[in-house]
């Protein structure tokens, strides 16, 4: 029996900008794409600054149920990375 893949959740970190509206302004990789640790996966606009969200692990990235132009909050899961056994960086 095969073990289920280990999933790592990609969340919006705390940008420390009180009152800023966070908005998903674009995906940088497609859902199902392979990412390396350090690759940007999407772009979040927080008013005066646009921040790329970085993959902290290598694996296959899948979008969560969020769409471009959605207003989001700190901690929202924007995707998951299916970690590859033996290749995790």
């Amino acid at each position: 029996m095969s073990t289920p893949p280990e999933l790592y959740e990609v969340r919006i970190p705390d940008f420390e900008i009180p009152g800023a509206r966070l908005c998903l302004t674009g995906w940088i990789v497609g859902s199902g794409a392979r990412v390396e640790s350090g690759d940007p996966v999407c772009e979040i606009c927080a008013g005066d600054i646009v921040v790329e969200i970085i993959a902290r692990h290598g694996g296959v990235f899948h979008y969560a149920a969020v769409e471009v132009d959605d207003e989001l909050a700190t901690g929202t899961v924007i995707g998951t990375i299916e970690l590859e056994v033996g290749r995790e960086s």
Partner: protein
Amino acid sequence: MFSREESKMAFYMLGRVELSKYLQLQRQLVEAQSYASDRIQVLLCEHEPVISVGRMGSHAHIRLGADRVKSAKLKSLWVARGGGCILHRPGQLAIYPLIPMHWYQVSPGKVLSLVRQAVMGALQELSYTPLDTEIDFNIWGRTGLLSVTAMAVQRGVSCFGAYLNVEPEMRDYGFIDVVKKIPADQSRRTMSSLLAERRQVVRMAQVRSAMVQSFADVFECQDYHIHTGHPLLR
């Protein structure tokens, strides 16, 4: 965070450079800096006339007539930064601090507030005190918006920065809405300038020099280097 012993800074005076050319340079520098660099690079320049449109901007914020856009040969360029539409033109100082954020353990909010603090510090060094408004990271005077902060974080490095109107030709600025939020005592969303504010000549060289000193102070760096031009800008 920053400390007198550890912060490393280099300032690059680029002179006048086209925005598109600067963006190429910025891409190269971000790529290089994302690999464990500990050096903060601050690039100072003026741009040829162009309107940049950030992620919060739209063509609705550019109220210039089509004839004027055509006669002034004003192009607009969509850029991957926060903030809205900004008209760039000689006489406006563009300040671009490229900070490896993981190395210095700073958040996007902290970077925005440090950049604003550094620009405020430079203005104070020039014996000018802006209005005390903190609705966002921009700087206001009696005559309007003086400096706008519009940034991005790419590959863990801060880029883009602040734009301070020193003494640009003011024609057209009244037709570009830069910000959404305005202080209670202001009525316009457009940019003014330091010259309009102080009603006396302000030399760009003086502003640049005050900016260097203020950034070094805010980022707690005693030992920094100043370069003219950049080896990657050809």
